[in-house]
């Protein structure tokens, strides 16, 4: 076989598509994946926003009561500092339930629905 023919054969083979392929609904899957990611980010943002709002509200209420009746607030503060472990545990559990409700369970359901 002549060299030119070999060159032509190689050139033709190089221009041919490799045998790899993607499923027909690939684009739809990507769009769903993007939507899931956006949803997860939005859920997380919402969780942090609501946590900050609750923390601000508690601070505002404490400030208000301190202005009205400082003794009461100091009494509450003494109770908190006297039972620090229990108080922190309760706050942590409540916060985790809130995180699970707003973010983690939604993420889990999304994963399941993907499967």
């Amino acid at each position, binding site marked *: 076989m002549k060299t030119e023919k070999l060159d032509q054969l*190689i050139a033709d*083979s*190089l*221009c041919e598509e490799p045998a*790899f392929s*993607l499923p027909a609904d690939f684009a739809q*899957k*990507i769009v769903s994946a993007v939507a899931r990611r956006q949803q997860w980010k939005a859920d997380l943002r919402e969780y942090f926003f609501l946590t900050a709002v609750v923390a601000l509200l508690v601070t505002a209420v404490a400030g208000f009561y301190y202005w009205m009746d400082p003794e009461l607030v100091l009494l509450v503060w003494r109770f908190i500092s006297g039972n620090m472990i229990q108080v922190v545990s309760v706050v942590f559990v409540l916060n985790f339930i809130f995180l699970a409700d707003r973010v983690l369970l939604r993420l889990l359901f999304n994963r399941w629905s993907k499967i």
Partner: protein
Amino acid sequence: MNDIELIDQVLKGNMNAFTFLVNRYQKLVVHIVGRLIQRQDVLEDVCQDVFLKVYQHLGKYRHESKLSTWIAAIAYNTGINYVRKLGNEREMEPDDASVLQNLADFKGDSYEREDLHRYVREQIELLPVHYRTVLTLFHLEEFSYQEIEQITGMPEGTVKSYLFRAKALLKEQLKRIVDANSLKEVKEIVHEN
């Protein structure tokens, strides 16, 4: 819809435009990633990763190169990282002598054009990763040397050298089997007589 309008629509949150973009460039991505990783079972996941990166970073695209070049660069980097993760470092340093040994022997009895054609396609898949990549980008996707440089980060001279060496290896192998087959045919004729 041209690329600029398409990007504009995707950045505005139009998911139909993004679907259109994926459909337009999925062949390009599958060719690059497929030739790099050569595994159908993980191809979809890696390609999905490429398009998620495209969506995530589309806001940073500065129109300094064609959109296809930009997407090809993301596909190349994602694919090459996957190859590195698999630990195929040896494949990264092409040594033509060992490559020639790795190329498979021709299994056919005759050298019909179609058989040789299929054989060359199989040999392309056996070439080192950088050779396969530049061959795909240059011949199949018709990118220029400068664009391949932008996509892979290889200097233009290296791209040219890889292209030349890859084609020379294929030709060498093809010559070998064509000559061997010619010899076999001659021997058979001699034996028949």
